[in-house]
């Protein structure tokens, strides 16, 4: 079990699934999920772009839904499923289709926004899939390009101008 020591702070036990592996740790109530992931579990793929909830670089999935991990108290991860960019890759090391498509479409430049982008796209795909599986529901139309843009609004990128990222997302929806 990993531990962080803080002076005279009350520590809380939490356990959760991190990329499908059960983990436990002791944290103080104010610990931020982003710091826990990066500093304690040393998964450095989740990026700190602002620590203020404004850039989306730190996006991870909590039970499949996207959150800015820099604003998410780690204590609220207790019992949940957290997925980071490291959890996206296939077990044999091959790229997840999201990653593959981002690469192929030229959507990665410096890459600092990429983890967050990939997780947001994953969340959008999840949402779309879930909506399709509501029993009795008619199959939904693919999201429009405008809807994809809207969904990715919370993820800033300074390098690419977004076009190729949106191209990649669109392609992924087409692939289904």
């Amino acid at each position, binding site marked *: 079990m990993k531990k962080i020591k803080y*002076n005279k702070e009350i520590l809380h036990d939490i356990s959760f699934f991190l990329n499908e592996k059960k983990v436990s740790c002791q944290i103080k109530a104010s610990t931020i999920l982003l710091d826990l992931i990066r500093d304690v579990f040393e*998964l*450095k*793929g*989740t*990026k*700190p*772009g*602002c*620590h*203020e909830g*404004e*850039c989306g*670089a730190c996006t991870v999935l909590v039970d499949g839904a996207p959150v800015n991990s820099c604003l998410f108290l780690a204590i609220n991860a207790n019992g949940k499923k957290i997925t*980071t*960019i*490291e959890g*996206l*890759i296939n077990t044999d090391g091959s*790229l997840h289709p999201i*990653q593959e498509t*981002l*690469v*192929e479409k*030229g959507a*990665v*430049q*410096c*890459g*600092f*926004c*990429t*983890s967050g982008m*990939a997780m947001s796209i994953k969340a959008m795909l999840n949402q779309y899939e879930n909506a399709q599986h509501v029993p009795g529901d008619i199959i939904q139309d693919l999201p429009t390009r405008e809807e*994809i*843009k*809207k969904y*990715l*609004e*919370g*993820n*800033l*990128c*300074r*390098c*690419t*101008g*977004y*076009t*190729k*990222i*949106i191209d990649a997302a669109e392609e992924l929806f087409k692939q289904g």
Partner: protein
Amino acid sequence: MAKKLKVIGTPVPKQDANIRVTGKAVYGHDITLPNMLHGAILRTEHPSAIIQSIDLSEAKKLPGVVCIITADDVDVNNIGYKRDHPILKKGEANCTRDEIAAVAAETKEIAKQALELIKVKYKVRKGIYDANDALKDSAPQINKFISGKFENKNIAETFHYEHGNLEEAKKNSAHIVSRRFTLPRMTHACMATSNVTASFNKVDKKLLMYSSTQVPFLYQRDMAHALKMSPSDIRVIQPIIGGGFGSKLDIHPFEPICALLSMKTGRPVQILFSREEEFIASPIRQPMVIDLTAGVDKKGNFTFREINILKDNGAYTSWGATTPFVIMQSFSSLYKLKACKFNATAVYTNNVFAGSFRGYGNPQATFALERVIDLLADKIGMDKAEIRLLNANEKGEVTGQGLHFDTCGHKECLETVIKKSNYNKKVIAKQDARFKKGIGLASMLHVGGGAKIYRSDGCGTTLKIDPYGYCTIISGSNEIGQGSETVLAMMAAEELGIDLKKIKVINTDTDVKPWDVGVHASRTSFVAGNSLLGAIKILKEKLSKKASELMNSSHSEFDYENGQIVSVKSKDSIALDKVVREMHFSEPNELAIASFFYEPSSKFQDKNFKGNVSGSYAFASQAIEVEVDTYTGNVKVLDIYVAQDVGKVLNPLLLGGQIEGGLLQGVGYALTEELLMHEGKILNPNFHNYKMLTASDIPDIHFFPIETNDKEGPYGAKGVGEAPLIPTAAAIANAVCNALGVEFVELPLTPERVLKAISLSKINNNHHNLISL
């Protein structure tokens, strides 16, 4: 090049994208070294103040604090190209960024806490926040480290340039337009904040810097000067860089501070900026006021331009002060021009100082110039597309400044965007009452083959092939996300017939790689590419000789394909790796290695800024269509048509990425991005109030590469990285003016500014109507 290209020109994805997209790339933020401390910097509370005392006693008592330094604790030299910038400030603060003290502690939290315990007594001064005020006799001298080479104590730098007979050109002008343009501060906002990790080894007195610098060898030299060390005792390793755009051309105080903390403690120290600190303490695009007077003759030929620029230099001089070097090129040489007189003055103030920023002054210049061209066209009643075509630069032209346009796609760029955008129809489109559409044109000229601003604009390459047929390119140049590694690997794959997967690029370590001046001036593909091609040529000579020996033939001409060396004549072939093994392991035992240093043919300009400063020149034109909501003042960019003279497309996928990314930075500059300052303090140091564009804001981009095949460039290519954002703000402003029939002399075109312009034009029109009644 008669041979058909197989790799060059194809959309090869970025070779290092895989590690970035899987979270495995190690950026500066991801480095942890054993026993590492965390550094933090205390900055002044007041942009202009006397520092009366600094009390560290409480901070030093905090458990976990290992070291605190102030100017009194260090023996260092100033930084900045004018050496006018102290690393830690002593006696006075002159800028909101000023570093007063620095802490190294066991954790980030403790370092931050310690800052709060440092007590500084200030005597607050009034400060000078306007460049004009700084020039007054009564103004105090803001920077005490300059030699006083200029007539006014607060002048940091001046530039004078002229060609042609200005007075005669004025006389020959049918119309003259004068305008004053005011350009804002824009910040790079790299997604990774500034970061550095320093590790000083007390035993052998060597310093290792993990730095995101764009110019490692200049960094090494400047760092050594600052720290009073030998440059070779400093090793610079570049982790993966989370965005550059020019921001990492200067060294900044936090970097030597980090080194000093490591030297004092003997432990590695890391400094990471918070986002707020990034907004406050990282460089910006230089703000300036441009006075431009320009003339046109009866037929529409441009006659002259007279330019006076006042630049707010901030408290210290950075490379940002040298942007007139590029600015004057646009004024002197974009479109044919008979006479030009250019003056620029950078003035010290207590504001934040600029750095270099993609485009290097050129977006500012191009905005002013292209706005005035529209006004001149109106004056003589000429179509705005026609006047540009008439004056467009041409192949073979040697400009008044001495730039040689051996290839020039300016006219073709213009023709392309005019045609593709349907410009002629759209410019006179009927208007809706509320949503008004407009279209604007602008062109740009930028260096496309490096820029000789240091003694050398060169780049070295060492190339080796191992006994397994893998190739390693050790390049002086580096990667900042733009894709240069991929382009180099493609060149090697093309020339050596080696699979891309078997090509490695090593370019992050100054102890290993040969000299290069750094990533700037859109030079990397051009200069590093030529350097690599030079090394390949030498290596192939060796390999071919060996191959011919092994084949027992007298053939000297070989093709390199699919890992084989193939005789052109007999079609006999031999595996490349086998040839390498034979070179290595049979007499006379030679390495399959070659080195080459490429220096562009460009010239250092003379004292009057004349001379052919670049190996080639890039041109681009944009036609941009906007829709303005006249109720809200909101400007929506609908379509961007961009044609750019890239020389030759090396990789359409990466090129497209450079174009789209650059364009959106240009749109941001035009519409939303402005670092707001009041009395030296930054008012919007966060993404919430500094408006960067998001995925929702993107226009449709229609890109048309123009291939002019420059004989100097690798495969004919020119630099591409900066061009896309340079004319964007100008074209957008022209489009908004076209839509509304108003004028703008400032950026960005925020809804407030647009509404104000609309209401002013209504007042003017009413006034006009009254008079005509």
